[in-house]
């Protein structure tokens, strides 16, 4: 059956009709132009792909380019179709360009990227450190958000990238860290710095508790069970009202202070000096934002450094051995459960630290920040970045968290693009964007 006919059948109920709210129940409206446009998109896409297959790559490129222009200029029946048309046309152009140029440019880019790959981390660190010099409040807030996800990605990387355990419920540990900080901070007046180790310990303890019974499971079963854990934590946070205040969340988390020495308000009430008085600089509200950004940057880099060190220690080597071949590793005396549990607990602890930061930064914690989609995003950052690649995680975090941040109009289509990108990346690069699964120790 030709693709456009399949598209017609698939689109008929969901694109051809729309459920509308009427007095006395649901009503139906028809959207034939939308359906027609959807069929046309699929037809053109299939046509272009066939042309590439037949060797008429240049024509396909022209069609793709024409479609990109059409997607931008022609008024489409709905924005949804416009987004689909644009995405599809862009894919065709890429595919045709790849077909025209062949694999050579990719190899050239690869050869260029390799030395750049050695410089890129330092360039990124310098850029990240100097960002407050030229970024305004919005940029800094976005950068803080991205860095939080980089930290979460690096934390999960210990579990997924090094130990090879696909954890689909990592947001649970993020949530535990955040709730510990919020409850202790708002209820008992503990500061962020006092909560930090407690959050890490609570998350690690829950990691051991949750991980212990299920770490023996096979990869995909393990993934689904951790997904269930993530949901359980969220449901509990939503319903245990006496502790978590249910869906309304915990507010009034104390603001971050300067290592317990100074506050970031103009005239602190609690007897602390203010940051501006302490350093003799004029008071500006952005000082707190900059400090928050540097704190998360430092925390994220701490995870990175930690990972770099631990992967050449015996425990890190045992993780990699288990990841590469579980049975062989066990035969050589690696205690599977204990070693995996260590990875799970350590990863959870870093997640808890990130959660503690999140609670302090937001000043407010509610269950909806820790839904399934959060877990999937963190997992996607690790997997799409290329499991085990620290740099890949930064790139993936910038792509997944940062791009929608800067393209606000995409907001509604963010998750659609995110889901489709996950599918596409797995289709063309099943090992992730930067797939360096080089063992830490190689025989020379």
């Amino acid at each position, binding site marked *: 059956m030709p693709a456009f006919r*399949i598209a017609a*059948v*698939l689109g*008929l*109920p*969901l*694109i051809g*009709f*729309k*459920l509308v*709210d009427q007095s006395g*129940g*649901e*009503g*139906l409206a028809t959207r034939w132009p939308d359906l027609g446009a959807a069929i046309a998109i699929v037809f053109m896409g299939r046509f272009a792909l066939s042309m590439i297959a037949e060797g008429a790559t240049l024509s396909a490129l022209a069609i793709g380019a024409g479609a990109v222009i059409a997607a931008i200029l022609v008024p489409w029946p709905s924005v*949804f179709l416009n987004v689909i048309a644009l995405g599809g046309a862009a894919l065709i152009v890429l595919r045709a360009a790849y077909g025209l140029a062949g694999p050579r440019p990719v190899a050239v880019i690869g050869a260029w990227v390799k030395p750049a790959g050695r410089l890129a981390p330092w360039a990124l660190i310098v850029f990240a450190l100097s960002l407050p010099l030229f970024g305004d409040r919005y940029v800094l807030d976005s950068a803080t958000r991205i860095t939080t996800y980089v930290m979460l990605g690096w934390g999960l990387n210990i579990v997924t990238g090094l130990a090879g355990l*696909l954890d*689909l419920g990592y947001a649970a540990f993020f949530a535990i860290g955040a709730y510990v900080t919020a409850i202790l901070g708002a209820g008992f007046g503990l500061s962020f710095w006092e909560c930090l180790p407690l959050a890490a310990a609570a998350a690690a303890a829950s990691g051991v508790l949750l991980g212990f*019974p*299920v770490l*023996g*499971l096979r*990869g*995909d*079963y393990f*993934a*689904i*069970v951790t*997904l*269930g*854990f993530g*949901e*359980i934590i969220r*449901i*509990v946070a*939503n*319903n245990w009202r006496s502790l978590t205040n249910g869906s309304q969340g915990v507010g009034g988390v104390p603001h971050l202070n300067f290592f317990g020495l100074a506050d970031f308000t103009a005239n602190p009430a609690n007897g602390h000096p203010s940051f501006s008085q302490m350093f003799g600089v004029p008071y500006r509200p952005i000082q707190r934002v900059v400090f928050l950004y540097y704190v998360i940057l430092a925390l994220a880099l701490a995870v990175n450094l930690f990972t770099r060190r631990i992967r050449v220690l015996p425990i890190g080597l045992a993780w990699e051995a288990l990841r590469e071949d579980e*049975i062989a590793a066990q035969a050589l005396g690696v205690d599977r459960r204990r070693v995996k549990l260590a990875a799970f607990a350590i990863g959870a602890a870093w997640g808890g630290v990130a959660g503690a930061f999140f609670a302090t930064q937001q000043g407010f914690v509610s269950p909806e920040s820790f839904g*399934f*989609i959060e877990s*999937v995003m963190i*997992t*996607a950052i690790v*997997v799409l970045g290329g499991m085990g690649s620290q740099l890949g995680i930064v790139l993936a975090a910038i792509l997944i968290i940062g791009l929608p941040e800067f393209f606000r109009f995409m907001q*509604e*289509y963010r*998750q*659609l693009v*995110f*889901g*489709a*990108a*996950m*599918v596409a990346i*797995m*289709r063309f690069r*099943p*090992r992730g964007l930067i797939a360096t699964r080089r063992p830490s120790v190689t025989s020379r």
Partner: protein
Amino acid sequence: MAYFLQQLINGLTLGAIYGLIAIGYTMVYGIIGMINFAHGEIYMIGAFVGLIGLLALGAVGIASVPLMLVLVILGAMTIAGLYGWTIERLIYRPLRSAPRLAPLISALGLSIALQQYVQLTQGGRVKTLAPMMQGGFVLMRGGDGFAVSLNFLQIFVFLLTIVLMTGLTLLIQRTALGRAQRAVAADPTMAALCGVDVDRTISVTFVIGAALAAVAGVMVVLYYGVIDFRLGFLAGLKAFTAAVLGGVGSLPGAVLGGLVLGLVESFWSGYADAAYKDVAAYAILVLVLVVRPSGLLGRPEIEKV
């Protein structure tokens, strides 16, 4: 006692719906060993197609409820089946030889994309349908005047599940297609050498699973009358739990698992805290995987080197 009986009936109805979805998981897992996480979304799409179909038939003037049901169920099965076929062809087939977690990640992404697709085309609002099949039997009255009812719709759900299960069992056991499916599940390379069209067999498996999920979707529209685009995620997870509970790869196991899960959820809501009924379901999933990973009716899996 009366309350117990009512929860039993409600639980079995819910369980039959879970069972129908679980079959899709179990069949796909049995044949290519992947968790098709997007299966819950196919069920959600089935529910939307069912609702739209019912309204469309009403709009063209077909008023006979039985005729409407037959047409809508067949239509939803066809369209959902085609969704299943397309997904397998476009997304899972190229990943068959990829690293083992790649299809799972793909399925996750697909699940999100399909949810968004329905939200963007049909809106995020909760959709409702006025009850179409009313009436039923009052089985007994408790001392406090609590009436235990078994309504026609519940009978319809049970009957349809039994019919579909019988048909599917016959299909798997007696037909050439079923034989091909069992052969591919056992050893795809060997099956291909013996002349089984492996690609086609896998495609058909996806289509059957999707069609059954669509039936479950139509049932949910009729039974609860409220759907939204988030419907698939939780139901998919529950159905997966049901499949694991019954033993992944076993058809009767999937239905049994669905029924057990439906009962647990129903009794938990009835006697304990309804807010934690999902927690109970996940707890079962974890317990089964830890204590008896092969499920109630499954055969233990031997880890191959």
